[in-house]
């Protein structure tokens, strides 16, 4: 077959380019792999059976069944089921990428829908690679300082004896999808005006530097034991952020804030007389579907952060997560209704996300009733915050800064208020625990704001003054889809988008 094809193809220069890429890839590959080959030859003695196939699994029949061996089997089951749950949760969190893509596409104009979807797709793709290469090591590698790790780059998942260690793989996939979540938040706040290339560069930066270092402060010791890991400095202080209200969402949100400030508002959003011209999204059904998908994903995000059977505590976390989400939804609906006279769909959808982000930190440590309260307050805060950023002339098309940044901070704070010892931590202010935990929470919130906002500001300014951050005015008018990607989201439809 190849011959026929090749003759057809050979005269075409663009094909040559494609072929070149292939050859380059193949070449660099061979170089890399041959080193592997040596490595693997050295340990060629091992002769496990090649049964990747379907086998009705049974605990390996050890020579003799002893009490100890059975007890160990039970331990093995528990840890393998833990791996399973971690992986399933990771798959759900992965699916949040689709949710983000739809929410952001739905809340922006159709002339930029391809672009925003591409950004979501590429930040996950690039982020997965760069987090595997570098980010994971910075976040979870061994450290004596507690500020960032210095080992475990380019994760192979082989243990000291060269055997694959499945816990590492499960943990890697779980942490990868978390990193991608932090990265993808930024795209929404900078939608409809950011250069594609510049966005990709920032994506690398956040998954390589901003998020992993931030993450190591609280969660750095989740992978290595205390023999090689000093513990993250905030984690060591007792900072509570179970699934990442701050570590993931606020970090993404503050980076988004930096981006939105540096890039400026979309043309036509803020008028000279101080009034705001709303720029509506092009598809509420897509946005709503996106929110439902995110909600589903969050059942992996929060309950899955047990990353083990953990006595079934994921069930409690599922309940607190859901009650906060519905609380956020109801509160945002009512707040919008009271303030603006109509039950606004976009605010209700933001409210769900506000509730989810808020409960992400305290989900493990609070009661169902508290979680409903946290969500309700998160929903109100979110609406006020959306209005506030409009007043401040910071243009955030999808409300990402309010939802992830501001509500992330609220959620983190709320852990200091509502935490209860009976769920496995300390008591917060409202439960007789005093202000100790609250102070720790505030320190964490501030530290993360300073880091994420500061570093992102520097990076965005750097991009702005080198390759440029923003598309030209004409590109913005015509839409990024056709100017950056040569394609419309709906090639056969006319969307009446006057601005």
């Amino acid at each position, binding site marked *: 077959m190849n011959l026929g094809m090749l003759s057809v193809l050979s005269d075409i220069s663009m094909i040559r380019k494609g072929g070149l890429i292939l050859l380059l890839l193949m070449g660099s590959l061979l170089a890399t792999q041959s080193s592997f080959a040596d490595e693997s030859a050295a340990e060629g003695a091992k002769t496990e059976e090649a049964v990747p196939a379907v086998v009705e699994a049974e605990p390996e029949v050890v020579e003799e069944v002893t009490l100890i061996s059975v007890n160990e089997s039970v331990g093995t089951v528990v840890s393998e089921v833990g791996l399973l749950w971690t992986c399933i949760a990771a798959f759900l969190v992965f699916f949040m990428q689709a949710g983000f893509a739809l929410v952001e596409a739905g809340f922006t104009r159709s002339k930029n829908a391809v672009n925003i979807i591409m950004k979501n797709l590429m930040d996950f793709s690039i982020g997965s690679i760069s987090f595997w290469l570098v980010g994971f090591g910075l976040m979870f590698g061994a450290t004596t300082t507690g500020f960032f790790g210095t080992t475990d780059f380019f994760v192979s998942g082989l243990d000291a004896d060269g055997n694959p260690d499945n816990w590492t793989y499960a943990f890697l996939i779980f942490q990868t999808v978390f990193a991608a979540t932090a990265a993808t938040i930024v795209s929404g706040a900078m939608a409809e005006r950011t250069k594609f290339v510049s966005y990709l560069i920032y994506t690398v930066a956040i998954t390589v530097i901003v998020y992993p270092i931030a993450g190591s402060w609280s969660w750095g010791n989740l992978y290595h034991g205390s023999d090689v890991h000093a513990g993250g400095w905030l984690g060591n202080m007792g900072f509570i952020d179970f699934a990442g209200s701050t570590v993931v969402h606020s970090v993404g949100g503050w980076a988004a804030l930096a981006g939105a400030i540096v890039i400026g508002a979309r043309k036509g959003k803020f008028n000279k007389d101080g009034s705001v011209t*709303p720029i509506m999204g092009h598809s509420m059904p897509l946005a709503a579907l996106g929110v439902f998908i995110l909600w589903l994903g969050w059942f992996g995000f929060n309950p899955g952060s047990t990353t083990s059977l953990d006595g079934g505590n994921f069930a409690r976390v599922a309940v607190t997560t859901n009650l906060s989400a519905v609380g956020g939804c109801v509160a945002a609906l009512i707040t919008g209704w009271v303030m603006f006279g109509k039950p606004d769909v976009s605010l209700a959808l933001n409210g769900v996300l506000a509730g989810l982000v808020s409960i992400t930190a305290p989900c493990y440590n609070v009661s169902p009733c508290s979680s409903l309260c946290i969500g309700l307050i998160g929903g109100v805060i979110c609406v006020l915050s959306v209005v506030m950023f409009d007043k401040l002339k910071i243009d955030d098309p999808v409300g990402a800064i309010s939802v992830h940044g501001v509500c992330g901070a609220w959620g983190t704070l709320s852990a200091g208020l509502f935490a209860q010892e009976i769920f496995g931590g300390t008591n917060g202010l409202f439960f007789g625990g005093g202000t100790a935990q609250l102070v720790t929470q505030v320190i964490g919130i501030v530290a993360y704001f300073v880091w994420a906002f500061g570093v992102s500001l520097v990076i965005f300014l750097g991009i702005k003054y080198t390759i440029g951050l923003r598309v030209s005015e004409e590109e913005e008018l015509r839409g990024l889809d056709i100017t950056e990607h040569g394609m419309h989201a709906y090639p056969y439809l006319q969307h009446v988008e006057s601005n």
Partner: protein
Amino acid sequence: MKKIEAIIRHFKLEDVKAALVAASIEGMTVAEVRGFGRQKGHKETYRGAEYVVDFMPKVKLEIVLSDAVADKAIQVIQEAARTGNIGDGKIFVSNIDEVIRIRTGESGEEAI
């Protein structure tokens, strides 16, 4: 021959069509348009910011017909499209020099 252009409300289209057919006027072309006029659009808010929807969705009917039936058609449309509220729309009448039926090449009144 005359061309009648009528800007009417969406939900009146079926009624107007039926009335025209009843009056033996059996050809027309319809387009979606947005109208700006005395019927002031409503104020809405989106995420807390106010805006005015001043272009209202309307339907535009184009009918080419012989001079003889033009008055009848105008009357029929006006009756069928009326609700009595601001925004009912307009009828514009102008002159058409020639009509050709693409299928047969017929021209003039035969072609209508």
